């Protein structure tokens, strides 16, 4: 009846996950109870859960990302404290089978359910606004994508209490991940969670590519798109081109595990090296999927807070496309030490370091954007500056690892761990934070508190420098990654330093949460009345904060390279707003529960397959198909907002714009 699922699946013998799960369960129950008591369900259901508005979906993506980043960080606390206590004779407090799950879960959660949703959420929210259109190309599909990602995140976290998570590292290298060496359900959780979330990501990629290429405000030629749209395009092209490889690879491993195929097994001619090859053919582009949008965010931030257009726009576009293509020719640098020989290693080493050219161009153009500017040090700009200082070091160590003879020494060391955190935290997370601080007022209509924001900034930045600085050094001293127990006492001091740094980051995380709490409490004081709090340059700042469902009452007519800046300057110059347009009724897509329902069924299918509950899997599949048919049968997919309503909403906006105009120079 329940396949392999029985009471032994619950880790009664391990207090830590049980207590954690119980705590989360209590909190969740409390939140749900509160919502029920307050009667917020209809609002949540109608306005958020079934929403197909790209802004709402974007916000939900970011919320999922934030929660999962905190979840991933709790793993970090476990790892750091455990390792600090696991030297020599002491075994620490986490047995290997548990510790191994923790670093695997940390990596998986941070990449797939922390950073990816955060970044995709920002793209979802911002790209249509910057392009001057009303939504993404496929709004309902967008909701499906989001909920599938959430479904994957849910499965990953369920593994904490029911069964186990993979103990193989964040990429389940075969043959360790094959049934012979990982008989438990951990790898199965990994496979289905990622497969479901991966489909969501892929569809989100299709959606955004189509949006950017086919839906832009009149006059918005390719070379007039804001830089963030370009990097979003690059990132989503990579998603479309790389995620299918992940899907295929995971499917092969699934076939091996479920049906006894021999893709990557030790037996019958299977080839484990093929797993590494394929997973990295996806894995390397993946890191640029993460970091390209962050580059875009920094481009926007540098330009806005230097009060200058972005320097060297054309080079930036070129560099982005360059990175997109070249990132598909470098994947072997993750297994130089497999022994493919001098020619192959040299080719991939060189092509890897060539990426530094494209990235270097970007860095230099950001510098020259500041040159001759008026630099304002608001929180987003602080993150951007810290990013450049920090990321160039991480990039440099990346290039060092791309030199095969150096990699022969550094592969799989803590130096490598330091490298990728240096670029991921310094690039992706700093970028996400900058974007969060920058676009928060747009999304919610009030700014975030600067004091707490700066505190969070300093704690996090100093903390990361300390932690990963220590990792670089122990890496050079020969320490390997993924150690549950350390018997080389020479590394002790640096592990303690890393622990101290982790505590600083924890302080940063807390300060970041405080910032949100304090800002919500003082939202009236922090209200953004104008819709343009930073003196912005691209079209999202022409809308009120938060923007109405339809974003733009009339699609903006773009006349220049910086669409909004140009409109704003013209208004200031002529001391009047553009003419009142001729408002027309607007058709917007109706909300739809398709996304949640599909994800609901997919979660069940995933869970059922993990535990071999075949009837439930079949039921879930049928449910998903029925959902699809019902969705396809809908007759009314859009609703109309009458012209008067549009006019009423836009009148308020125009009044607040008048304020900007009269001030002559917005703050």
């Amino acid at each position, binding site marked *: 009846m329940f396949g392999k699922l029985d009471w032994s699946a619950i880790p009664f013998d391990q207090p830590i996950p049980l207590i954690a799960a119980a705590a989360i369960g209590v909190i969740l129950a409390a939140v749900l109870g509160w919502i029920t008591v307050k009667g917020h369900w209809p609002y949540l259901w109608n306005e958020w859960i079934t929403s197909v508005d790209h802004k709402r979906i974007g916000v939900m993506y970011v919320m999922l990302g934030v929660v999962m980043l905190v979840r991933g960080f709790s793993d970090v606390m476990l790892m750091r404290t455990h390792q600090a206590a696991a030297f020599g004779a002491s075994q620490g407090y986490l047995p290997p089978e548990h510790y191994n799950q923790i670093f695997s879960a940390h990596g998986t959660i941070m990449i797939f359910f922390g950073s990816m949703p955060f970044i995709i959420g920002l793209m979802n929210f911002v790209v249509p606004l910057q392009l001057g259109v009303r939504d993404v190309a496929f709004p309902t599909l967008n909701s499906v994508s989001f909920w599938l990602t959430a479904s994957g995140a849910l499965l990953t976290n369920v593994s904490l209490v029911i069964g186990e998570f993979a103990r193989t590292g964040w990429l389940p290298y075969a043959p360790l991940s094959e049934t012979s060496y990982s008989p438990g359900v951990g790898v199965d959780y990994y496979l289905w969670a990622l497969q479901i979330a991966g489909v969501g990501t892929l569809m989100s990629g299709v959606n955004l590519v189509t949006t950017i*290429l*086919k839906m832009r405000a*009149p006059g918005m030629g390719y070379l007039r798109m804001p830089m963030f749209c370009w990097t979003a395009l690059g990132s989503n*092209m990579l998603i479309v*081109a790389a995620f299918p*490889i992940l899907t295929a690879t995971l499917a092969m491993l699934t076939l091996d595990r479920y049906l006894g195929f021999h893709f990557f097994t030790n037996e019958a001619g299977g*080839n484990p*090296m*093929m797993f590494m*090859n*394929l997973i990295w*053919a996806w894995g390397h582009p993946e890191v640029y999927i993460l970091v390209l949008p962050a580059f875009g965010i920094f481009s926007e931030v540098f330009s806005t807070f230097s009060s200058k257009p972005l320097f060297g726009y054309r080079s930036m576009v070129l560099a982005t496309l360059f990175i997109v*293509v070249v990132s*598909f*020719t470098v*994947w*072997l640098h993750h297994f130089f030490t*497999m*022994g*493919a*020989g001098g*020619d*192959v290693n040299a080719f991939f080493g060189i092509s890897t370091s060539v990426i530094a050219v494209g990235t270097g161009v970007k860095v230099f153009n950001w510098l020259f954007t500041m040159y001759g500017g008026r630099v304002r040090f608001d929180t987003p700009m602080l993150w951007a500056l810290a990013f450049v200082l920090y990321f160039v070091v991480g990039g440099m160590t990346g290039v060092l690892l791309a030199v095969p003879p150096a990699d022969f020494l550094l592969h799989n060391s803590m130096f490598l761990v330091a490298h990728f955190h240096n670029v991921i935290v310094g690039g992706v997370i700093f970028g996400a934070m900058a974007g969060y601080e920058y676009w928060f007022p747009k999304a919610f209509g009030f700014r975030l508190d600067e004091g707490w924001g700066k505190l969070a900034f300093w704690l996090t930045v100093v903390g990361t420098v300390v932690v990963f600085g220590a990792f670089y050094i122990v890496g050079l001293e020969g320490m390997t990654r993924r150690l549950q127990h350390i018997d080389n006492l020479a590394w002790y001091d640096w592990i303690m330093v890393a622990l101290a740094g982790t505590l600083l980051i924890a302080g940063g995380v807390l300060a970041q949460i405080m910032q949100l709490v304090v800002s919500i409490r003082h939202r009236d004081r922090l209200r953004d009345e104008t819709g343009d709090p930073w003196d912005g340059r691209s079209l999202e700042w022409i809308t009120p904060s938060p923007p109405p469902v339809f974003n733009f009452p*009339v*699609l903006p*007519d773009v006349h220049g390279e910086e669409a909004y800046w140009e409109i704003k300057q013209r208004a200031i110059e002529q001391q009047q707003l553009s003419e009142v347009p*001729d408002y*027309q009724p607007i058709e917007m897509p109706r909300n739809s529960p398709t996304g949640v329902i599909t994800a609901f069924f997919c979660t069940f299918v995933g869970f059922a397959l993990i535990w071999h509950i075949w009837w439930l899997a079949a039921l879930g599949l049928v449910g998903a198909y029925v959902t699809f048919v019902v969705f396809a049968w809908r007759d009314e997919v859009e609703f109309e907002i009458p012209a008067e309503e549009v006019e009423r909403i836009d009148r308020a906006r125009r009044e607040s714009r008048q304020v900007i105009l009269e001030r002559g120079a917005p703050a």
Partner: protein
Amino acid sequence: MSDHKRLDGDRNDSAPGDEGVNTHEPLSGVKGYAIGLALASLLTAAAFILPGTGLIWGPAIPAALVVLAIAQMGIHLVFFLHITTGSDNQNNVIALAFGVLIVALVVLGSVWIMNHLHHQLMTPADMMRMMR
């Protein structure tokens, strides 16, 4: 209204699979599909039959088959999917080119890497087999 301007087809842009916007080309409609079918059948037949006839130099057969396959894919793209070089089709073709590039990189790259690995990590037994 600019955004309601053209709801049925842009003059300079067409959906993939749609026939070109300036439709009245000679090779459109049923005729186009028929020609496509004829050409594809021809190429398929050639691929199945030629290797058995001894008309092609043995070692060159794989190359011939690959070329035939590429030609047939081209036929499908042009006559069934209406991918052309027309300006209304640029976006579709660029996307296709990007896709083909990625496919080529992944397949050729993997084969190249795995061949080298296989060669470098060959077991003594394999080496014997190679010699033979």
